[in-house]
């Protein structure tokens, strides 16, 4: 019977969970907990905060299940709760985020040396992953949501728009500005890394 739950679509599982089939909600947790945790961690960086958001998200989903009408998919709904919960957490902690109005993405990096040639695997080491997390952390919260959903979690512009209750045009605009800021952050990182290596080679 448990095997059956694995093969049925989300909508049917939600319907069963609404009829208080407790195993059905358990299966929804199994399907989405890693995605929810991942989104929360990418937005907040701190594993304890991400776990708080994970628990808060599924608690809200459980409490709201009866009134979930299926106007959006369960996936969109759970992502929306996660993104909002993570945003509240960011605001509550009063983490030093830049306001969206101050986020002038046209701050041209000092020097965009072309660090891109070569395979992605060559660049993707631990130090780079730290810099990538730093870059997300430096984004204003509203940009961070869009960037993580779209470019880290790989959702479509339309899905991100629905999750965040924005127009697709607004998603595209925020996304482009977020990407520029992220790229500029990484450009500084790679310039610095190369500078250190060059200095090391000389000494």
């Amino acid at each position, binding site marked *: 019977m448990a095997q059956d739950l694995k093969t049925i679509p989300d909508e049917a599982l939600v319907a069963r969970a609404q009829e208080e089939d407790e195993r059905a909600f358990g299966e929804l947790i199994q399907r989405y907990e*890693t995605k929810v945790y991942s989104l929360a961690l990418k937005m907040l960086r701190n594993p304890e905060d991400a*776990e708080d958001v*994970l*628990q808060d998200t599924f608690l809200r*989903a459980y409490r709201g299940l009866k009134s979930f009408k299926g106007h959006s998919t369960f996936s969109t709904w759970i992502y929306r709760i996660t993104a909002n919960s993570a945003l509240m957490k960011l605001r509550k902690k009063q983490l030093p985020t830049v306001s969206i109005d101050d986020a002038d993405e046209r701050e041209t990096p000092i020097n965009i040396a072309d660090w891109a040639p070569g395979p*992605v695997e060559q660049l993707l080491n631990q130090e780079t*992953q730290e810099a990538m997390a730093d870059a997300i952390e430096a984004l204003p919260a509203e940009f961070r949501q869009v960037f993580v959903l779209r470019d880290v979690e790989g959702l479509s512009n339309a899905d991100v728009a629905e999750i965040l209750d924005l127009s697709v045009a607004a998603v595209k605009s925020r996304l482009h500005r977020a990407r520029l800021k992220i*790229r500029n952050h990484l450009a500084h990182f790679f310039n610095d890394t190369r500078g250190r290596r060059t200095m090391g080679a000389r000494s």
Partner: protein
Amino acid sequence: MMSCKDVLDSISLYLDEELKQEIKSEIERHIGKCSDCRAEFDTFHMTLKLYRHSDTPQMPAGCHDRLVKVIELEKMRAKRGGAEPDTTEV
């Protein structure tokens, strides 16, 4: 003729394949000749590839069990009639 600023403003749309072929071709012609825009384009593209290749984080040990426990407690609370009000937007 496309300016460097036009190219920079269009990189996201280009990479998301949301531009008409004629605009794409114009961008390709521009970055074929302009090394600054080539670097802008390549580093922008590589940035997205890095994030798309990064690992999905695994949940820490015990995280799933703690979540299940939280939901179990909520079920018990609901059965006793003490459920929290539903404030979730649907």
